[in-house]
């Protein structure tokens, strides 16, 4: 039985430019997975951006120093495919009956196609949205799973006028994404417009009932002497039978390290 809870997938990722990979996502996650960081595959920084991975592999100069940013090809000149990248990893997950597994992306910029063990899912557009997929039924019985994600840049990366300016040609404003990436009076443009799996990736294992997005609100009366904590949770029963549950709320003040007063 796998342990209930969340596990981050933040190591062992590989990346490759999409234009250098002939295989499909189905082939990458079934018959032809990459064997390791040998060209065109490279070690990837996840969470992170395409440029972060290219920098990690010394394929671009560090834009933080001097005029190095001028030496990096801007997406306006290279086209979106140049910064459209595959990210690949494997993970083990051995479940038992009545357990369920979700694959979670806390943020991707800007859209993606996901392949897991040969199954395809679309991760819709938007830099500031989470994606959570129930992968219980597509996990490998032997526990070894192959995951590939093809990440596309924002739809409107825009181009930077010779005189620069705040937000470049403002095209990025057509998307729901960070706008500073076209450059501002305090910032040079970011060449890949921050394309990538830029926030946490995790798998979460639960039993038949899952807790989603609890909401905590406090209300105060009598000069902050009488205080209430209101908690609302979303509960999902993913089994095929009625679930009789006990819901527990516990509030503790963490005195030191792991000593709690209940």
């Amino acid at each position, binding site marked *: 039985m796998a342990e*209930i809870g969340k596990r981050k997938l933040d190591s062992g990722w590989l990346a490759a430019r999409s234009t250098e990979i002939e295989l499909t996502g189905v082939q990458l996650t079934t018959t032809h997975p990459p064997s390791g960081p040998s060209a065109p595959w490279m070690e990837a*920084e996840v*969470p992170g951006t395409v440029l*972060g991975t290219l920098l990690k592999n010394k394929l671009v100069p560090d*834009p933080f120093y001097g005029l190095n940013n001028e030496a990096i090809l801007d997406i306006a000149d290279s086209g979106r495919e140049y910064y459209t990248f595959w990210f690949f990893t494997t993970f083990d997950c051995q479940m038992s009956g009545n357990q369920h597994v979700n694959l979670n992306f*806390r943020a991707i910029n800007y859209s993606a196609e996901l392949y897991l063990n040969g199954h395809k899912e679309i991760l*819709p*557009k*938007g*830099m*500031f*949205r*989470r994606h959570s997929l129930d992968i219980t039924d597509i996990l490998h019985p032997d526990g070894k799973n192959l995951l590939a994600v093809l990440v596309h840049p924002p739809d409107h990366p825009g181009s930077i006028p010779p005189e620069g*300016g*705040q937000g470049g040609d*403002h095209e990025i*404003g057509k*998307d*729901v994404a*960070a*706008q500073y990436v076209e450059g*501002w009076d305090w*910032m040079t443009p*970011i060449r890949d417009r*921050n394309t990538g799996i*830029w*926030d946490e990736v995790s798998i979460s294992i*639960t*039993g*038949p009932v899952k*807790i989603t*997005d*609890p*909401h*905590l609100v*406090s*209300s105060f*009366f009598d000069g*902050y*002497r*009488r*205080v*209430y904590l*209101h*908690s*609302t*949770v*979303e*509960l999902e029963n993913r089994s095929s039978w*009625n*679930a*009789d*549950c*006990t*819901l527990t*709320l*516990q*509030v*503790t*003040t963490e005195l030191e390290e792991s000593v709690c007063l209940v």
Partner: protein
Amino acid sequence: EHVQTEKLSIPPGTVLQHTLLPAFFYKPNLWWPNGMGKQSLYNVVIAIDVNGFGESDSWSHHFGFRKIESVIDTTTGGRLFKVNGQPVFIRGGNWILSDGLLRLSKKRYMTDIKFHADMNFNMMRCWGGGLAERPEFYHYCDIYGLLVWQEFWITGDCDGRGIPVSNPNGPLDHDLFMFCARDTVKLLRNHASLALWVGGNEQIPPEDINAALKNDLQLHPLFRTEIPNSEEDLV
């Protein structure tokens, strides 16, 4: 400080929203901004056990009891903030993001945010052209007492006031904007440091987006009213 349990039954294949009975606290330690008192945080754990299976899922969060209010002062036109009924003189800093390649680490957030607290700031303003900041950012703002003013992704320059004037109606897909806004609110709403959601930087979002944000972000009436003294009344 507090443990309470409730029984409930969930039909197969169902998603339901459940509000627990309010948990009562007498004079809890309040959360205060930097320079006004301690940033007391409680560890809240919500767990669900299923008969015949055992613990099915659990969630935890460091929660701060605090009441943040802000109004526009009619005399000055400025926004006045109060925390736990006490007026706060805002010493705020502009925040874009940690790193241009989004190499966002807890250690970096802790260092950056503690630096601002050590400089005696008590607010971080997350600029609309940057990010909806991440839970780790808010976690350290909770710990170091920095209130957060979080803007959505609208800027004057890119949305109708730039040179050349562009995107006067904001992003192309308003539904996508609202989907991202709602999901971001759910991701961040439990943090004690979150003080204000702001439509955008130097620009009001397009009318439909602005109206939807205002509607979705108002405080639920339940939390405005006096709680009845007895649980019977409440139920």
